[in-house]
């Protein structure tokens, strides 16, 4: 890109390699690994399994008699050829790799105190993860660094993002990280402002009509404070709860952030609605400010829609889920995370060209959580849930067309991985 020297580009390309969320690879004949969630009458019994299957077009996918059992609800994030499975209630992170025979092997278990809920990566070597202040307490955050080769934690670094302590719990705010990215020698941490209520935050989002990112020197030093906090009022808080790709770094080093915006925000887990548009901001490679000339206004481009999720599929392209306006759904807190409304459409966004194109062949659906996408032999696999059940869709990167594939005999597939 014109803003940056050729030298920087070369150095960064060498440093960061290509990210797992946009990796292209040759997968001919190997099974694809999936994080599969079964159905159950009791949510506590909705177990997740790692299953492997070659054909995702016709054979129904189920965990009956097959799969590696996981504990409770987990985050799944692949870096290089390593899949990290990080417990939400269960305080451990397991790392899996495929052996020469294609079978999965657990290569490490890492026990943590503060649950990592926000993830990022550096190339195909490093997983970054950080916690969220669910206690509402004014305490430092922890950045975990894990090595993808060994699956092991290599550093645990304490740092602060933001907090406002009024002396009365519930009136102040604490910072809830929503995205992690490293570009050059800087770490970017997107965050929300949550209330600091005693006995646990109530997830009230203060100043949600502003986007916030804290910037640090990287590698991070213990007890680090932000070099600065950058903010932007063209759109709202960056990211939605739980999404591991609220802030993504493209291969060219540019960082993009997605904001749901204020219209219908309570449906997406924010505490109030407003007129703030939904949109995408950019931090250009080598910069530590939002690009003042760049704002991809999703509300305008999608006729009042709001971006709920996006994930890179290579180049300047991302696939995104747009929450379409729905009068009933928009009045219910957190409804976008539930199964009562199927109001999401899948679109292709070219971040550079600022174009938004509907993906052909995918119905309106609902999806709570998705691992970073992987491009496998030019295809991207998605779990699409509609009132008729869950199915795999195979998306062709070249044609922007998705075709309906295998039936998912269960709740959902959280991600598809080429390990």
């Amino acid at each position, binding site marked *: 890109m014109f803003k940056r020297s050729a030298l920087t580009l070369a150095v960064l390309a060498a440093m960061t390699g290509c990210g797992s969320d946009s990796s292209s690879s040759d997968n001919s004949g190997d099974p694809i690994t999936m994080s599969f969630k079964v*159905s159950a*009458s009791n949510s*506590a019994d909705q177990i997740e399994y790692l299953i492997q299957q070659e054909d995702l077009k016709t054979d129904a996918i189920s965990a009956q008699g097959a799969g590696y059992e996981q504990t409770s609800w987990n985050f799944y994030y692949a870096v290089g050829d390593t899949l990290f499975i990080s417990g939400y209630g269960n305080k451990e992170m397991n790392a899996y790799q495929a052996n020469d025979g294609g079978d999965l092997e657990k290569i490490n278990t*890492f026990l943590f105190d503060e649950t990592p809920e926000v993830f990022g990566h550096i190339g195909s070597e490093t997983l970054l993860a950080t916690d969220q202040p669910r206690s509402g307490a004014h305490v*430092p955050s922890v950045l975990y660094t894990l090595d993808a080769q060994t699956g092991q934690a290599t550093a645990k670094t304490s740092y602060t993002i933001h907090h406002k302590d009024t002396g009365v719990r519930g009136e102040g705010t604490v910072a809830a990280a929503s995205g992690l990215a490293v570009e050059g020698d800087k770490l970017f941490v997107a965050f929300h402002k949550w209330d600091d209520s*005693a006995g646990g935050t109530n997830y009230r989002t203060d100043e949600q009509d502003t986007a916030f990112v804290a910037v640090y020197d990287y590698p991070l030093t213990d007890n680090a404070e932000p070099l600065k906090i950058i903010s932007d009022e063209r759109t709202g808080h960056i990211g939605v709860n739980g999404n591991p790709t609220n802030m993504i770094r493209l291969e060219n080093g540019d960082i993009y952030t997605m904001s749901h915006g204020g219209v219908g925000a309570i449906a997406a887990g924010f505490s109030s609605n407003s007129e703030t548009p939904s949109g995408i901001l950019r931090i250009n490679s080598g910069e530590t400010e939002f690009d003042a000339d760049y704002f991809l206004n999703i509300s305008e481009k999608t006729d009042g829609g709001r971006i709920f999720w996006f994930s890179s599929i290579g180049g300047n392209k991302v696939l995104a889920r747009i929450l379409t306006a729905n009068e009933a759904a928009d009045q219910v807190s957190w409804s976008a995370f539930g*199964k009562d409304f199927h109001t999401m459409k899948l679109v292709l966004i070219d971040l550079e060209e600022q174009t938004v194109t509907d993906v052909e062949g995918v119905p309106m659906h609902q999806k709570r959580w998705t691992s970073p996408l992987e491009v496998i032999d030019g295809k991207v696999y998605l779990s699409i849930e509609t009132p008729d059940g869950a199915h795999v869709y195979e998306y062709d990167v070249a044609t922007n067309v998705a075709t309906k594939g295998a039936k998912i005999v269960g709740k959902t597939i959280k991600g598809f991985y080429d390990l």
Partner: protein
Amino acid sequence: MPSSRLSVHQLLSCLCLPVLGAATHVTAKEPGHADLETVTVTSGSAPETSIDVADTGFNLSAIDTAEFFNFSKDLQQILNSSPGIIVRQRGALGSDSELSINGLSGNQVRYFLDGIPMEAFGSALRIGDLPVNVAERLDVYKGVVPISLSADALGGAVNIITPAGNEDYFNGAASYGSFNTLRSSFNSQHSHSKSGAFARLSGFFNHSDNDYEIDNAPVTDELGNVQQSGSVRRFHDAYRSHMLSAKLGLGHRTWADELSLGLTSAVNRNELQHPTTTVNQVYGQYHSTNRTWLSTLVYKFSGDDFALTSYLLKGQVDESYVDTASRRYQWDGSYTPRSEQLGEVGNRSRLTVSDDLLRANFSGRYHLTDQFSLGSALSFNRTDRSGDDSLQPDSTLLAGTNQLTKSVFALDSSQTFFDERLRSTVFWKHYVYEGEVSSVRTESFNQRFVTSKETGSANGFGLALQYQPWDSTTVKFSREKAYRIAEPNEMLGNGQFVLPNPELEPEQSTNTNLSANYGAMLNAWYLGAEINAFHRDASHFIYYNPSEVIRGRYENLGEVLAKGLELSTTVDYQDSYSAHVNMTYQDITDQTPQDFDGSENLHRGDRIPNTPYFFANARLGWTHHRDNFDKISIYATSRFVNEYYLRWESDGDKDQKDKIPSQTSYDLELEYVLSNIDMSASLTVSNLTDEALYDNFKIQKPGRAYYVKVRFAY
């Protein structure tokens, strides 16, 4: 069995004797099987009232505790060796435990202390706290419960009968053993025969360091990467509880069989080593404490054809959870500091949950003829809950007042036919409940104080039939549509991790039992056998839905079908050898049509995970009577539980699935009873082979342990 031939009068007089009298009486009356674990009281009667002939036909296991008096077991362990019953513990003395009867478990089973519901009596008065010597008998009703125990017992009831009687007594017992475990208890009564006045005092003291080794704790590097699993010693798991109970009363007056006033105080302190489901995290100071005060007024009267029992109970139960150490502990006892706003679990906290209990019951029975009687019962049970966290004054948890009131009105009709060969009871129970919740709710992220009140009612019916074609043989059939109204902590929350849900409906189940019992003396042999088939068709199961993972609420989510078979046999030879074996197979399946967010439930028909389905117990005894009439006995006890999966059986690669392994454990007990003074001593070796025992996934129970116990009486 022989007891089936005892008249009601004989049986009552037997049961009403003081503890020791009862023990010797049983031994004398029934030589050859004094070691029976289960005495089936087929002539049906509850202990201290004469109005409970309605028990006829109920599937009642009356466990005579006398034979365990000399041994270091508590009531929980004794129940655990009965067919159809399984007690799952999360550790040793004082740890959480859950009892299941015929597949229904936890708060679906109700405990009673002399007929008074023990619900919410506090953690110092759980059944695992009660040493065997505080009880005279355990009545276990499986699935179908008589109206005299008026409560919402979905899956059955356990009634703990304490010693009572006319004569003065004083007895005490103390055991000491591994892990610095001391358990002691005493019972005493002083009475004035002329006036009928009596005073009873009883109590217990339990302590254990519970510092046993577990095998599977993770050993990590300083960052948390697991290097291996290793043995560690539990270092923050001590438990202490004590109870003192006094009763003053008058008996044998023309106007009252008993009028008494009782006062009970119980206290405990429970250190918590780790969260309930994992040993990955370690606590070094987190603990809970309990203080319970109970006062009771009891009135009993029986005339020629009319009997009345009533009680009034007032109680105050304070349960505190103390999480004040801003530290993160490791298994070696070392720690790293945490931010000062945090404790070991969450925000630093010293939460006290206080329950005010008010319970009352009036039961009457009118005998119209020798063959026909009518019974009625009216019970009232109110719990008021409030909470306070001295370290979180801004906390809104339990800031309001919450209450739950449950009332049961019940009627029955009992009749006998064919010289009492056929007995039948039909009954009706009407439940009314009212829950009131004042709590902070989040509506569109704005907190506001909301008071909501929920009322509801339900009608249950039941039938109990008993037919005795021959003296040796009894056949029973019983069936009840039973309910369980949500517990206060389910409807109202516990102020810690459980959020309120006032819309909760009662759980319901249609429970059916069919059993046949044979018992006969053949020369020097006693042979006994019992088979019991059970069926539970339950719906509206209340499941904890951890919607916020560490927090959540209880919801009506499940339908469950349980079918099972229990077999038990007893063989005794003279007064010297005894063998008792029982086994239970239960098929408990999920029948819920939809999952919790409305999709098809793909596990419909699957076995409920994390639930034992095949288990067996054996107890062999040998007794030697010495020339000086002293007695030496040796008992060998074994228990087998077949492996079961932690999660849905049909899912996942069988080789990769987490499971609770098959386990066989052995206990050895040696007893010496002196004849010239009323005293005995015993040695117990539990878990003889030092097996790694688990009732819950990866939560290991103690290895081999030794206990010595001495018991005496005047």
